[in-house]
């Protein structure tokens, strides 16, 4: 009983997070930056931050994660980190030779008042940035938002720095991806290709954080959105942005700076959200939906038909990022399941509004919370009050699942006790099929293991 200390009665907490359902901004900035080809993330703060973020990403993706640090000392904290960052930029270009350095701040550098924009401008003016190379920066204080906010801010920075509108309009669609797995990035490209639409996907961590084995250590693996692609985004016909928490700023920046209009969508998880995504792509690219995609959708719906009696009324507790949770709740409702408890540490007022939209007249069935004190301790207390049949969330859900003996589907970040999650998509119709398969496996295994002998069924 790892969480034997969790009380059933809700304690009034004003100033405390227990077992967080989020982490801090810089790790998100680092992940987004890794989805740009030839980009070295740089953490402007103490060494620990960089080390923790690299470790966290390494544990989840099982791939080398490279990033440099300003290595703050007591001196830098008193006199400011400008000297460290200027020195770092010089060192990085001469030793690690990236095309882009993506600098993000930390709570420390933010609080002492380092102005990244000004320091980067100075680096450029001082000739520390070689021709054709770039330094971009994003402000990512750890005490604002969550890891998703950091991803959002870095993505916005990337787009703002590179996208340029020229006279030459391009028959292409920008695809802004929220925080999803490399496999999902690959799935987004597969779907676009099937639809016959040229897209620029950013960020794109496929082939970076699921790189094949080559026998070589590569500082900059093959994947990632390239600079010419990023530049060309200003000339695209439209932007399709998926995952509001992660992509909104970048979508607005493209609209404001380059007059590229956008559709703001959910991540395509489940039938309806994928329908909306496909329709948006089809409109943006002015192409019809190919039969192949219809057939994929048909297979997903067929699978739900085959198995719907097993989903009915099953209560689910979920935690993670809003961008995943919202469409996932919608999908679960379509499966006739009951998303009973939903928690996200990531703040944002629209979460409640969207939950109400998704749940409609079923809103009374759900207890949900996001932002301050929305943590796994809260979720566990709710589960203790009335149990659930399934728990969905990152690896840390294991404590609750084991203590309460609940089938547990690992989804989200981080997953550090299983492998495979970064190889199979959960987006699109095919991703829907995978989610279904996983849920069914768990429910049926639970039934098998908990049935009295005379009730064990061979055919289920």
């Amino acid at each position, binding site marked *: *009983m*790892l*969480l*034997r200390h969790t009380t059933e009665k809700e*304690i009034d907490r*004003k*100033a*405390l*997070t*227990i*077992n*967080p359902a*989020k*982490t801090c901004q810089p790790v998100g900035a680092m992940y987004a930056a890794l989805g740009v080809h030839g980009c070295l993330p*740089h953490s402007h*703060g*103490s*060494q*620990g*931050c960089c*080390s*923790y973020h690299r*470790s966290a990403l*390494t544990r989840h993706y099982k791939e*080398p994660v*490279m*990033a*440099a*640090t300003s*290595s*703050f*000392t*007591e001196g830098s*904290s008193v006199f400011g980190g400008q*000297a460290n*960052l200027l*020195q770092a930029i*010089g*060192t990085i270009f*001469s*030793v*690690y*030779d990236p095309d882009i350095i993506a600098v993000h701040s*930390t*709570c*420390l550098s933010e609080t002492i008042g380092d102005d990244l924009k000004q320091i980067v401008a100075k680096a450029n003016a001082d000739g520390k940035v070689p021709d054709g190379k770039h330094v971009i920066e994003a402000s990512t*204080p*750890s*005490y*604002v938002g*969550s890891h998703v906010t950091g991803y959002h801010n870095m993505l916005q920075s990337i787009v703002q720095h590179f996208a340029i509108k020229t006279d030459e309009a391009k028959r292409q669609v920008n695809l802004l991806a929220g925080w999803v797995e490399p496999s999902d990035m690959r799935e987004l490209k597969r779907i676009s290709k099937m639809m016959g639409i040229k897209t620029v996907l950013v960020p794109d961590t496929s082939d970076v954080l699921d*790189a094949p*084995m*080559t*026998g070589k*250590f590569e*500082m900059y693996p093959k994947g990632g959105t390239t600079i010419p692609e990023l530049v060309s985004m200003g000339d695209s016909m439209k932007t399709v942005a998926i995952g509001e928490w992660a992509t909104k700023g970048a979508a607005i920046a493209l609209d404001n700076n380059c007059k590229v209009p956008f559709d703001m969508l959910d991540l395509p998880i489940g039938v309806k959200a994928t329908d909306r995504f496909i329709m948006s792509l089809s409109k943006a690219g002015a192409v019809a939906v190919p039969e192949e995609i219809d057939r994929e959708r048909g297979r997903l719906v067929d699978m739900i038909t085959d198995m719907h009696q097993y989903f009915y009324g099953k209560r689910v507790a979920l935690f993670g990022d809003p961008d995943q949770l919202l469409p996932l709740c919608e999908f679960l409702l379509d499966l006739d399941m009951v998303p009973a408890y939903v928690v996200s*540490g990531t703040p944002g007022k629209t979460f409640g509004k969207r939950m109400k939209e998704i749940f409609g007249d079923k809103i009374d069935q759900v207890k949900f919370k996001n932002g*301050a004190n929305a943590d796994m301790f809260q979720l566990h207390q709710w589960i203790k009050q009335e149990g659930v049949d399934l728990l969905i969330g990152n690896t*840390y859900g294991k404590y609750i699942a084991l203590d309460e003996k609940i089938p547990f589907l690992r989804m989200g970040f981080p997953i550090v006790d299983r492998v495979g999650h970064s190889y199979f998509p959960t987006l699109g119709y095919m991703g829907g099929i995978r989610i279904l398969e996983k849920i069914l496996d768990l429910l049926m295994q639970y039934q098998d293991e908990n049935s009295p002998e005379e009730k064990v069924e061979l055919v289920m």
Partner: protein
Amino acid sequence: MSKYIKDRTPQIVTIGEDQHDLACEKKSAAGSVSQRACVFCGSRVVLYPIADALHLVHGPIGCAAYTWDIRGAMSSGPQLHRLSFSTDLREKDVVFGGEKKLYSALTELIESYKPEAVFIYSTCIVGVIGDDVEAVARRLSNETGVDVLPVMSEGFKGTKKDGYKAACDALMKLVGTDDNYLPPKYSINILGDFNLAGELWILAEYYKRIGVEIIACLTGDGRVEQVRKCHKASLNVVQCSGSMMHVAKEMEKKYDIPFKKVSYFGIEDMSDALYEVAQHFNDPELMANARTLVSEEIAKLIPALQPYRQKLEGKKAAIYVGGAFKAISLVKALRLLGMQTVVVGSQTGNKDDYNLLQKICDKGTVIVDDSNPNELSDFVKQTGADLFIGGVKERPIAYKLGLGFCDHNHERKEALAGFVGMLNFAKEVYASVCSPVWKFIQK
């Protein structure tokens, strides 16, 4: 592009080729992809295994989230340490200060958990906004009667090593607070074992067999009550000297308890660790027991190691770990498997450790301080290593290079201490170095 950071040349030595002494204990260059962590990290990993204490991270959520149960330190009883408590500082707190929040969080926590003691970890930002954590801790101690111990571990104040020191300072405030305890005849403390994969339990059994009792382990499977009375022990046995030397020296000064630096890794070092303790008590029976234990264990171990040794003979290993002292034991243990160490480095090694490494390694071995992925990958290629021993960030790099890997850090799954640990080590190294997977890779 120059391959290495210019100023780092003094921190790299190839035995037999370079004449200069290895430079160490330097700050990392800004812009390096250093494998090092921060002061807070050092404190957290040292104190985390005290299982009946409440560990509250005072800072933004990240510091708590990234150190949530990653140590792998096992507890035979309470599990309070595995929960993640944070004041989760927000913008408002950064502007107006976080003291109130800290006070109110701890009042709630102490009330509901009634912990034996509380550690409050100061993070970077707390140092900058100037919260008086010590004052809050004092106030809470007075009001609640629970020991509330500030850990001054602001991330930027140095390296991981300075974090060890901050942790030791906090520990020393607990040491000696129970003076009524009557110790057994032959008693020791183990300093610097964190009970990864249950290693402490192996050692405890060995010491019991020779007739010595462990009063406290700092901090593996740790309990506050043990720390309070550990000043009654006759001897401190220091395993992870990098982290715990400070406590050993303080206890020697304050309580006149001598200490011995030992290692529990490999046959030689494990045996010495037992003999030295027996010798300290100067009781022939203890020594006889130690000799019997060692010969019994070795008699079992040597034949069991043989099949692995046969397969591993002549293979080469690269080591990059946190502290350099454990690298010394690793070199010896690898030798026992017929393997040669060709690269060895650490994040925070000191002069003594590196000097000893230079003495015991063969000609051509690269010794390196505060290295980074580029260098490591080059050294490994140059020297033709077959195995990499390191931590979480080195594992995928080793794999990408097509090398076997063994974790000698937080994510260790196998107990490597003691005689049985040596066998586990051999199995793990064999499983990785001789895995069929490498034949699919063209290096």
